[in-house]
């Protein structure tokens, strides 16, 4: 199969009436890269994907596939494959004819259609149920058929709109790994739209985090996790979410109400202190706190504790389980694992 090509979005925006769904978006996706568009519903990620597919026309801006400007082109002239959240299989056609559909439209000779459909279906493990209709197979098999239909024409760009969110939790994990494996094997450039941050972090080379139609941060999963650019990304990426405490930086520490945390080389001024639940610990000499909620998560325990009027989520190993209502000490981590944000939510440290 042919290699994927780079995708470039330049000043892309989309307006629906008075609502600006996507605001002047600039983004580059490398050839063969898998990029996730991550964000809550209504953030503009699906709108952006539909503009790349050619379903929506951008209000302003341009879409490039390699050096070719594609935004004035009809979807059929763009060489993209797409998987929809509902799979959008044609209910009156068998899985075989569903997968063959793009090839039939291109008037590919019948023998070649048969060979290519069978090959793609075998690759996805649905080669034995091709004579069935979509309603007669499971959700996971429908999802594979939809993926096969997107891949059978060997597109340069693969667009995935929440392809896993209608699957059972167990199948979802294996489908994640399988899509990633296929994408890397075929070398196709892929864009995955999802609201599930774990899915984005697990599958993508790079993640674009969206909020309110604007790109918040575009980085690798590691950078997103360790160096979130603002409080939105900090709160959205990671589960359970980062604790964000509003207060004042004093140069040598952070103050929020009665809570005082010494931090050497802290900035100054009003802002937010961020700390991930997995970086907090309970122990002697910590800030005195009262345990409000203990939530066993299997391998770990999530503890909600109140420290000087501030509620914090703390993630502990399963064997360290405090009693609800008990008194504990909350230990803050080293400076390097803390996050400093200014009043507007922008990251100001540490580097």
């Amino acid at each position, binding site marked *: 199969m042919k290699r994927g090509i780079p995708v470039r979005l330049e000043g892309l925006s989309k307006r629906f009436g008075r609502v600006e769904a996507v605001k002047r978006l600039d983004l580059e996706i490398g050839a063969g890269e898998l990029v996730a568009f991550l964000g809550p519903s209504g953030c503009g990620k699906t709108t952006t994907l539909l503009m790349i597919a050619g379903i929506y026309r951008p209000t302003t801006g341009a879409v490039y596939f390699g050096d070719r400007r594609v935004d004035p082109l009809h979807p059929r002239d763009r060489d993209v494959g797409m998987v929809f959240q509902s799979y959008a299989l044609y209910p009156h056609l068998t899985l075989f004819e569903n997968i063959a559909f793009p090839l039939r*439209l291109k008037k590919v000779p019948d023998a070649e259609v048969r060979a290519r459909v069978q090959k793609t279906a075998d690759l996805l493990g649905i080669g034995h149920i091709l004579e069935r209709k979509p309603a007669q197979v499971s959700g996971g098999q429908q999802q594979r058929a939809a993926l096969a239909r997107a891949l059978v024409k060997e597109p340069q760009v693969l667009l995935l709109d929440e392809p896993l969110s209608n699957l059972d939790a167990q199948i979802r994990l294996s489908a994640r790994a399988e899509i990633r494996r296929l994408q890397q094997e075929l070398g196709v450039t892929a864009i995955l739209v999802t609201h599930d941050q774990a899915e984005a972090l697990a599958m993508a080379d790079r993640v674009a985090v969206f909020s309110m139609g604007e790109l918040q941060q575009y980085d690798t999963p590691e950078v997103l996790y360790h160096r979130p650019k603002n409080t939105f990304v900090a709160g959205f990426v990671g589960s359970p979410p980062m604790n964000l405490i509003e207060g004042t930086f004093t140069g040598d520490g952070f103050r929020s109400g009665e809570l005082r945390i010494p931090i050497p080389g802290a900035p100054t001024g009003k802002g937010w202190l961020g700390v991930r639940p997995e970086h907090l610990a309970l122990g002697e000499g910590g800030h005195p706190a009262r345990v409000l909620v203990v939530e066993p998560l299997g391998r770990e325990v999530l503890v909600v504790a109140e420290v000087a009027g501030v509620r914090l989520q703390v993630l502990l190993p399963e064997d360290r389980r405090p009693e609800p209502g008990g008194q504990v000490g909350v230990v803050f981590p080293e400076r390097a694992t803390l996050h400093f944000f200014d009043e507007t939510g922008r990251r100001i440290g540490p580097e």
Partner: protein
Amino acid sequence: MRRYLTPFLFLSPATLLILLFFFTPVVATILLSFTDLSTTTFQNPSWVGLKNYQDLLADPFLKKIFLNTAKYVALTLAFNVGMGLLLALLTSLVPERYGDPFRALWLLPRILPPVVYVFIWQGLLAEAPMGLVSDLLGVSKNWLVAAPWTAVILANGFVGASFGMLIFTSAIRAIPRELFYAAAVDGATTWQTVRKVVLPLLAWPILFVTAYQTLSLLTSFEYILLLTDGGPGFYTTEVWSLRAYHLALSNYFGNVEFGLGAAMAAVLVVIGVVVSLFYLKIFNFKALVSEPKIEVY
């Protein structure tokens, strides 16, 4: 016994209505068709067995009326379903702010009383200074006399097409938007999307409209009655149901033959049942209705 009581109670209103307004008239018509009830025998009708049916078969015009009926039903049906489908597709493809008003406009004839509607057609088809069609074609004629079949079919069709238009439009709207997106990404043109995705998904509504309209056209005659009354000339546009009406209720000289008219009506009921069974067979009705109409993922 109790098990059946509740379902029976739920079914009883509909059952009662069907018994009262369908079975009773059918039975009464069949009974009537075995008598010689007419204006002259009104006081003491007598049983004549199958004589009315023998008379029908002996009627030299029966064949013409049968062919007229077939022609009327087939052509009007084709127009109704085809035009309904075309209107539904066209008004669904353009933005809603154009499609919706257009459909509302096309529904106007349906809410007009038939007499008023037919008056308009008669005006349109009249001779030159009055008739719009004569004006437009530059040939002054009474088109109702010159082309009675076209007039009958179009007058019926313009009303009839709106039924299919409504059913097909709602069926098109029920198709998930993503299916259209998928077709576009897969490389389909608008026409290919219509032919390969939309039309197959409309199979059931098309069956329904075709079957329903066949039956209603077989028995409807009010527009023909008002437009041409079976003319012009001798039985030119006289169809089966109109002939039954003429025989039983509106003959010249007040000589109405209830028995003979009832016999014609009874034959029409049989034709209707046969046609229904035929539709259920060719459209594989059972398979169609047993398939889920709504995909639940």
